[in-house]
């Protein structure tokens, strides 16, 4: 499993948030599976040329969101999806993102029916990846 993370300074999204977003996306797409180990903080920091504290912060945020668990001495691992919880802030963020997508779609001239169809298709792709990921394991 190769975890390729890219960060860009100078965006309005802080660096730690970019890491959180990319890891979250990887988990959602099934490219990171429960039990997978995230790179060590120092290793990732050296690779991305950023402060190790930023990586640590990103891992903290992921842990608080329930996406990962840290075992002292061993490292940080993707958590079991059954143990994850969602809270109001997460839902908020989700709705925000949805609004962005819907806005774009409407401006491109798509109708709600088209948008729903697109959504279903993408969901399907994610589900497939997750299934095949599980099969690999």
């Amino acid at each position: 499993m190769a975890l390729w993370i890219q960060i860009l300074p100078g965006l309005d999204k802080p660096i730690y948030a970019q890491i959180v977003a990319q890891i979250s996306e990887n988990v959602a797409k099934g490219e990171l599976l429960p039990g997978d180990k995230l790179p060590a903080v120092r290793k990732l920091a050296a690779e991305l040329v950023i402060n190790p504290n930023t990586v640590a912060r990103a891992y903290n945020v992921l842990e608080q969101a329930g996406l990962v668990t840290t075992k002292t001495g061993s490292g940080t691992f993707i958590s079991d999806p059954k143990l994850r919880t969602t809270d109001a802030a997460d839902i908020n963020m989700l709705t925000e993102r949805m609004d962005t997508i819907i806005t774009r779609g409407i401006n491109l001239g798509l109708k709600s029916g088209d948008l729903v169809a697109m959504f279903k298709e993408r969901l399907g792709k994610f589900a497939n990846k997750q299934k095949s990921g599980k099969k690999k394991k």
Partner: protein
Amino acid sequence: MTETVLETYGLTKYYGGTLALDNMDLKIPRGCICGFVGRNAAGKTTAIKLMLGLLKPTAGSAKLLGCDSQNLTPAIRQRIGYVTEGHHLFHWMSIASLEKFQRAFFPKQWDDRFFSEMIEYFELPKNKKIKHLSHGQRAQVSLALALAPNPELLVMDDPTLGLDTAIRRQFLEGMIQLIMQQGRTVFFSSHILGDVERVSDRIVVIDKGVIRADCSLEQFREAVKKVKLSFSDCPPAQLDIEGLLHCRRSEKELELILIGTDDEKIKQWADSAAAIKYSIVKMNLEDQFIEFTAPPNHKKLFQWEKN
């Protein structure tokens, strides 16, 4: 209790009648990477030189590693790496001679392999004289000379000034490598906010000799907000919103720069001021810095009028 490796108390410097540094109070703990940002001639070099005892304060004091800056002992200087502004080195020396020279002052600390690896990585021939190097190459040598003795505290004055992107990245890599070792602290001035955002966990903003901010990078990022509001009529004259730094008015719009104001409070104020709509504008670190240090009534230099 984390030890303070760099501290200043009311550090002030006048050049004749000009105030270069006004009452600077700073406490940098061990293990911190602190980015010292400010515009040109904001007082960064003055502050750094005062900290290193190269300048004398008009008032106040500074301490490095617990030792007064005006009386830094050789033993303390041994633990401090310093990259000077402009990376000026003895131009007649070759890299190898400079290495020998510098190494003589760090008999036990000098990391031969590290220095050679760094110079090799930068593809610099050791027998080349400093006067035949470009500014960027000189900066690389300067950094290698400062890092090889493995200093506890690294103070750098605008280390990436004049360097191209690739070399800047290498500089940052070197800094990250250093900071990963226990107990190392870096204090560097820069006006390249992308670099500061990458490696710093703390930011100190200086403007016209005055420290305007001294906090974690996170806090700064979260605190500086820009809010745009539009009104059906004239915006209110009284702006009693907490944390207001600047405001810009136009006919029916208001742009506010707020420091440390809750999103909730912004919403409340917008409602109470009867704004038609408002939005919290997303800013990157550079935007935040510019807004934070902008003069109160700053006008735009270039304003294109419609003909």
